[in-house]
């Protein structure tokens, strides 16, 4: 039972609208029964086996290593055949894994976030191939498509439980992060328009940094991360803009001091909450598992006793008859030292006191009812 607990993967499930729609679809598809149950079970056992996991981890690692080697042009030139063959091998292994998983669980596959990541990576793998086919070999953005292949290493994180729990914990904060970023963007937008009008439009203005909206955004981002802002300020000073200092300082205070540190505060709050919740869930699950194991032991014991009772030679006697003989062997002078709570004095006292209190309550209510009955 504990084994079941340990191998239960932490699933990334999307919520809200997408979730409810997929739930409805899933409910409908669940009714369809599959006929190839044995083959499915076989593939399922393959997918769970540690051999496949080891194979995949080594594939991804060697893929990453080959990508590192491929950044150097000389090595790529000398070993191009090796690179071609290894590329074919890796892509085929990824595709096999994808098809096996979809075959085993066609509907449930799409609910797990890490499987969606696998699908995205397979699509990314297909991009350079399709680009080469469509646009020819000298498309200027081909090297960008090659660069994105480094994302394949993200497949590794689904094999590490620690990183998965970390992502689950941190992933709770993603909404807050997105909202803070949106607020920052809005602030930057306001100041960008302001800066453009103040410093970008006039002829003597600093067209380099504030000339168009994109440049203004970059300048403001540079101010927010306080990197090289004195140079930017100097250029504005050289053009004798009087209000520029106030503008820059106010923006730096708002964006860098307040917003970016608000980030820290919000993340601390949420990380704490999610870690606490995670730990609480862990404790509850542990408790539930413990209770289940106890129940199982209890049930097993009962079955044993029942079996003994119903055994042929005892002839279906009840429990009390079975132990009559045993009871006779017990002597009063034999001591038995116990230290569990159920036979300890405090427990007996507390239990009996509680029962006595119950009795008094019942007696009192009875007497009061009788009294009211006679009155009526």
């Amino acid at each position, binding site marked *: 039972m504990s084994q079941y607990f340990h191998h239960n993967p932490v699933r990334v499930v999307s919520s809200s609208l997408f979730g409810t729609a997929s739930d409805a679809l899933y409910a409908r598809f669940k009714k369809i029964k599959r006929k190839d149950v044995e083959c499915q079970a076989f593939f399922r056992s393959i997918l769970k086996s540690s051999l496949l996991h080891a194979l995949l981890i080594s594939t991804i690692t060697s893929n990453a290593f080959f990508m590192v080697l491929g950044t*150097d042009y000389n090595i790529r030139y000398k070993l191009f055949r090796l690179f071609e063959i290894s590329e074919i091998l890796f892509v085929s292994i990824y595709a096999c894994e994808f098809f096996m998983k979809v075959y085993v669980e066609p509907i449930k596959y799409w609910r797990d976030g890490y499987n969606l990541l696998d699908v995205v990576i397979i699509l990314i793998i297909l991009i350079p191939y399709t680009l080469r086919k469509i646009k020819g070999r000298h498309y200027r953005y081909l090297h960008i498509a090659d660069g994105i292949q480094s994302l394949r290493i993200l497949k590794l994180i689904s094999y*590490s439980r*620690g990183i998965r729990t970390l992502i689950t914990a941190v992933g709770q904060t993603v909404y807050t992060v997105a909202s803070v970023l949106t607020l920052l963007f809005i602030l930057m937008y306001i100041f960008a328009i302001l800066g453009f009008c103040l410093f970008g439009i006039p002829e003597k203005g600093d067209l380099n940094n504030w000339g168009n909206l994109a440049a203004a955004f970059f300048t403001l*981002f540079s101010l927010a991360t306080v*990197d090289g802002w004195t140079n930017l300020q100097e250029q504005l000073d050289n053009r004798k803009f009087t209000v520029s200092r106030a503008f820059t300082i106010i923006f730096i205070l708002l964006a860098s001091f307040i917003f970016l540190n608000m980030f820290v505060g919000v993340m601390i709050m949420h990380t704490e909450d999610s870690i606490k919740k995670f730990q609480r869930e862990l404790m509850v699950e542990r408790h539930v598992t413990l209770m289940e194991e106890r129940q199982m032991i209890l049930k097993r014991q009962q079955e044993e006793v029942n079996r003994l009772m119903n055994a042929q030679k005892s002839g279906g006697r009840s429990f009390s008859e079975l132990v009559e003989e045993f009871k006779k062997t017990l002597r*009063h002078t034999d001591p038995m030292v*116990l230290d569990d709570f159920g036979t300890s004095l405090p427990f007996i006292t507390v239990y009996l006191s509680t029962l*006595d209190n119950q009795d008094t309550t019942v007696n009192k209510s009875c007497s009061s009812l009788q009294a009211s009955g006679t009155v009526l």
Partner: protein
Amino acid sequence: MAQEQGHMHLPRADAIRSRLVDTFSLIEHLQGLSQAVPRHTLREILDPSRQKKLMSGDQHQLVRFSIKPRHMGHITHSQRMLSSLRVRCSQRPPLSLWAGWVLESSIFSKFIISLIFLNTIVLMVEIELMESTNTKLWPLKLTLESVLPEFVVLMGVSGESVWLQLLRISRVLRSLKLFARFRQIKVIILALVRALKSMTFLLMLLLIFFYIFAVTGVYFFEDYSRSTIEDLEYSMFFSDLLNSLVTVFILFTLDHWYAVLQDVWKVPEASRVFSSIYVVLWLLLGSIIFRNIIVAMMVTNFQNIRNELNEEMTHLEVQYKADIFKRQIIQRRHNLSPEAGRETSHRKASQDLLEPSKGSELSDAEKSDAETSDAETSDAEGSDAKRSDAEESGAERSGAERSGAEKRDADTSDADINDADINDAEQAKAGEGQKKSSKSKDYSSSSSTSSSSSYSSFLVDFDYDGKLDWETLVHENLPGLMDIDQDDRVVWPRDSLFRYFELLEKLQYNLEERKKLQEFAVQALMSFEDK
């Protein structure tokens, strides 16, 4: 024994029966596997004096192993090894035990501290002496500090080999161990190590992202690295993987990122869109989000560490409260028992019993077999007298109670339970619960109502005395009571224990039946009143 109630299934009763089966190893007995019940406990084997007594008697006895989970502090390696059977039964103890003892001893640690001091002084003298040969590289103030200059030394001195320098540094870093001795610093170092340990996965994730952006950077900025335009300041930044890694780290620290970006824009072949997406994405993800996640994790870890240090304190508090609760319970029994004991003639025997049992209690703090026999024989007589004129379930249970638990433990303030009132309570319940009548029942119920009324009056007084009502008091303190660290062991006579379990199980069924009857009564009353 409780009849098999086919229509009722109570998990509590099942649990009690399971406890009975477990305590007496009934399964093995009924299968004919073993005939004996363990007579001795672990305590007797571990205590040398009792072990001697045991060994001198019959050596073919069974020992009962009962392991109660206790709240222990830090368990050292030597403690673990000493508990292992292999170590205890081997002829010679393993060497690591002795090594651990040596390390823990105070003389040895003091010796090591003095050695480290001496080492540091000798190192400083060495540096001073060497200064005369390489004057320009050894400013005087370096000799005053012992840690930082060694790194400067590594950079400065080129004449000697690097390994010698590293050796020197390792010797100096030993002096850092000095700081580990002081408690405050130890706590901080412990906190730092734990924070780092919990952040391993975060750092792993960060490394993965470093890799992704480094490799992607090489491919994205190929045109920029290979461009032939003059006066590009940062052209080497993305030229190969190692440089790209360093550049990614530079961008992570937000240093001159805009300058790098503007430099890239100078090259017309490099696409502006993708390069700005790359840089802005990495800034947002890496230096803004990741750095704040690291801060958040550190804060959470420090809070956890502080909570754990407080946990010890709260545990002690809970124990203390549970102890007080236990004493309160005992006090209640004390106060109730003398008054209730005077009521009827039944309890004359118990009155006599109270004094001698109390005396034997207080005089003997240890468990002893011989002394129980006096009190117990008189108990047995009293219980036999009881058994004849009371109902089966209630009275036998009370008899078991009275002759049963005499507590032997470190806490000598306890006395045995006066179960006269238990007897009353039992009979009252039994009387309500079971509808079948017998002449003994009439007799016992009359006595029980008189005694229960007096008893209940005492209880009522007690309820209004306490600040909290009984329910909340029990609810608050029961978990603490269950986890209490003290080793309370109760000596039960064997047949009384068996009877106790039987009666407890039957009580559950009775209570269930009574509950049902009460519901019926309430319904009847409601319908009666409606009419």
